[in-house]
């Protein structure tokens, strides 16, 4: 194996570690929301620093590979993809932290009925699933798995759009729960952004493996092989 191959493998392994940590952050955020577990939410906030440290390290690793190995073709596309995925993961980490902060700030438990009506848990699970699948696609270099993510993102968008009306309605009927309802709306907004990050990551994976640029295309075009 060439020296560059070893560097690229290490870069991939580091990216997967960061990714696993970010996905864990999202998962803990979800658990803390469901159980209003503020300790768990604090854990998420504390681990955010580790995500940031990974981001800096991956940036530096990519920079070194560019400078020392002048990667070309698929190697070049891989390092470029990691550079952008790194950025998307860091933002996803920020989002998980943001959700955890809401959980810490909220006074009352989230009403189970409201969670149901807004489909917030379903949305959260779909978002986590998208991040898990993109990780799998990256690890296995499998663009078919990456493409599945675009479909799931539609679900997130749909839930997000309907949430406004559902929550407005709920607040009218439960004015005493206005605070937690608004927090939940904010969480739904953030989950929608997790979906966007997952989608960006999927586009990067397809770019590096197939050399196709999918950014800013419609979902129908994206699913064309």
């Amino acid at each position: 194996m060439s020296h560059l191959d070893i560097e690229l493998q290490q870069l991939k392994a580091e990216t997967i570690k960061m990714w696993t940590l970010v996905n864990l952050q999202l998962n803990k955020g979800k658990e803390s929301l469901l159980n209003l577990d503020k300790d768990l939410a604090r854990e998420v906030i504390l681990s955010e620093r580790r995500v940031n440290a990974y981001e800096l390290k991956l940036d530096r690793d990519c920079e070194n590979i560019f400078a020392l190995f002048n990667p070309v073709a698929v190697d070049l596309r891989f390092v470029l993809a990691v550079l952008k995925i790194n950025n998307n993961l860091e933002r996803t980490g920020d989002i998980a932290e943001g959700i955890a902060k809401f959980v810490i700030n909220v006074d009352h438990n989230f009403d189970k009925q409201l969670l149901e009506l807004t489909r917030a848990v379903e949305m959260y699970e779909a978002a986590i699933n998208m991040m898990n699948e993109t990780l799998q696609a990256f690890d296995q270099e499998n663009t078919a798995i990456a493409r599945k993510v675009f479909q799931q993102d539609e679900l997130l968008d749909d839930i997000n759009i309907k949430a406004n009306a559902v929550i407005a309605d709920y607040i009218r009927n439960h004015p005493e729960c206005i605070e937690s309802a608004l927090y939940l709306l904010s969480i739904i907004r953030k989950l929608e952004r997790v979906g966007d990050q997952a989608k960006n990551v999927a586009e990067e994976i397809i770019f590096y493996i197939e050399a196709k640029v999918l950014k800013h295309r419609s979902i129908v075009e994206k699913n064309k092989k």
Partner: protein
Amino acid sequence: MNKLEARNVNVFYGPNQVIKDVSISIKKNTVTAFIGPSGCGKSTFLRLFNRMNDYIDIFKMEGRIEIDGSDIYDKQIRVEELRKQIGMVFQKPNPFPKTIYENVIYGLRIQGIKDKKILDEVVEKSLKQAALWEEVKDKLKNSALALSGGQQQRLCIARTLAVAPTVILMDEPASALDPISSAKVEELIYELKSQYTIVIVTHNMQQAGRVSDTTAFFYMGELVEHDSTKMIFTNPKNERTQNYITGRFG
């Protein structure tokens, strides 16, 4: 019309076929890089364009090589005239053991040009084009052999330019030079392409990336892929090209 055109070219050295059915089109005023592992036929193919292989007894060619649409292996073609139009620069700088001035005008002397005013003009113009004028203008009567390797190579380029070619063939022109001289030669290639059609054989991938508009990858006598240099270095179509440029060969 393309400046250079090869159509279904085969080359043999005795019984060995070293170029296999190669066709390529090269546009005017572009830089084309030939890359590929040693022995794949880059130099042989390059030399076809100024008929330098004709000196080799066992050389035999099939197919057509055209410059500006005319067949340069036609019996009517006068090889000396052809070579005026197609200059060549080699890996090792090969100045003659003469003054800098005499080196530059060597080709014109052979053509019988004696007018000092014309010769002076050509020397200045060619040395300027070769980005050497400032360094040597006060010592034109000194021996060319006293110049550094990088300066000698630029002098050889000036000598090539002096006879006003339209095409310049370069066979690893910077591989014997230090990084700074090499960078100067690269700069020069970049400058020259507005007026000349340049074909360069190089072993240095980054150099090919920096100087050329299109890149042709040769492997065992075949032309595997010829595309814009950007395409070759970001998304080559052929797996053999990718393996070669990413250093995962064989």
